[in-house]
């Protein structure tokens, strides 16, 4: 069963963790999908 290690942190700290993770995740998704999409778009013109 998954343990709940994140609850060892305060609510504020958890929010901060979530925010940083979302920002980095968004950057990674934009890079990952964006790079592929841009290449396919440029290649199909």
């Amino acid at each position, binding site marked *: 069963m998954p343990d709940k290690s994140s*609850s*060892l942190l*305060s609510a504020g700290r958890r929010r901060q*963790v979530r925010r*940083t993770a979302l920002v*980095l995740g968004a*950057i990674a998704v934009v890079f*990952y999908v964006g790079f592929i999409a841009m290449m396919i778009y440029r290649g199909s013109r």
Partner: protein
Amino acid sequence: MAYDSHVATSPEHDAHDHRPHGWRRWVFATNHKDIGTMYLVFAGVSFFIGGTMAMLIRLELFHPGMQFFDPLFFNSMTTMHALEMIFGAVMPAWTGLANWMIPMQVGAPDMALPRLNNFSFWILPFAFILLLSSLFVPGGGPAGGWTMYPPLMLQGGASFPMTIFAIHMMGISSILGAINVVVTIMNLRAPGMTLLRMPLFVWTWLITAYLLIAVMPVLAGAVTMLLTDHFFGTTFFTAAGGGDPVMYQHIFWFFGHPEVYILILPAFGIVSEIIPTFSRKPLFGYDAMVYATASIAFLSFIVWAHHMFTVGMPLAGQLFFMLSTMLIAIPTGVKVFNWTATMYKGSLSFEPPMLFALSFLFLFTIGGLSGLMLAIVPADYQYQDTYFVVAHFHYVLVPGAVFAIMGGIYYWLPKWTGNMYDLRLATWHFWLSTIFVNVLFFPQHFLGLAGMPRRVPDYAVQFTDWNMVSSLGGFAFGLSQFLFPYIIWKCVRGGVRIGNRAWEGAHGLEWELPSPPPFHSWTDPPSEALIQQAAEH
């Protein structure tokens, strides 16, 4: 922004301290130590699979002429050996060490995103089962080299899409792991653990994680374009349709060169932990080490075309990439100087981690110097695609990255298990590895300078002697590696109990925790005084 409060009091903490048992402990693992262990075991298995492939390569090259395999299988072995070692062994080993050590070193209870941590690990076995199973499909395994250059790669059989999909999975796993590392370091540091108090291993991993997030998508883009060229009629890299195969090389190496630093930067971090401990002195020039690491990471983005000087590029381009590559020698030289200066007038002792760190220092420098030779454009025209290149990157990656991983495991294994391992056997492991790694790879410099091309299953007879020496070194190196899992297994099973601090000169927060450390590492943040004391070393 260190983490400021734990809501856990002792009874509440106990409630979180339940350990799942049996297979559930591993499949549903969210604990950083369990996941770190899984990464390390996975890396070990990959190391032996990739190593077996290397042995087959050396077996075929023991003698000129075709001995055991057909050329396609030989090419599959060189391709799979590289993919297995880079993505299956070295990168997961670093992630495993990061999982184990970063929370303990920054004063955190666990990684910031434990479920994501589980997910990023469990993608890997599926990726590698897919990759390895591609050896058994019609047309054989991928045989275009780990760089997967078109048009050769596009001529692959059913293994081609399997390889591409496996690479996507590995890339996603790496990105998720990197996000977790950055979030942990940026948010879960204990109060008082300022950035410039962080241990060098944490620093190097922070920079590595940013590199991973930046360049893994580029690899994904490159291999997706290969996929659409093969299956959907695009011609990104097909000259007949207006595409350009050289463009693939640019895109690949824009990923590939930072990837080299992804493999080596955490090694710098580990060596920066080990050398001060066994010199009983603080690290010389801590700030310079941090800035040098950041400089190397930055430079890694502007040197990619040194891998492709011979494709034909303008003179100005060759000069730019040659000079920018040479610039990397400056921050790397700072590091080598600082490690040496740390040992100067230190009270040195030579336990296995220090032996591996010293071997790293000498042999990685040899790899660095042959890298400088390769950076010189006119010289590279001679070395390109010869065994000199093979010798160069194996010196960087084996006595470089792999020795640092081994040194790191020998350094922290007593902390992880609470037992000291068999130091005598580990010293044997060190000497056998160091002697035979040189017997294996040093003659490859001579072969390359004499003109033996890489990635060939057969060669001209004048290359026979050094190939035999290299193969014998390879077999001996491979055999001596079986000592490593045996030593670890023996240590896990028992041994002389150690206290919190396994090594007399050890410093850092991890050594303040009990050995083995508790399920959640720092449920109460360490005091600022403790952090300062750890950072002063």
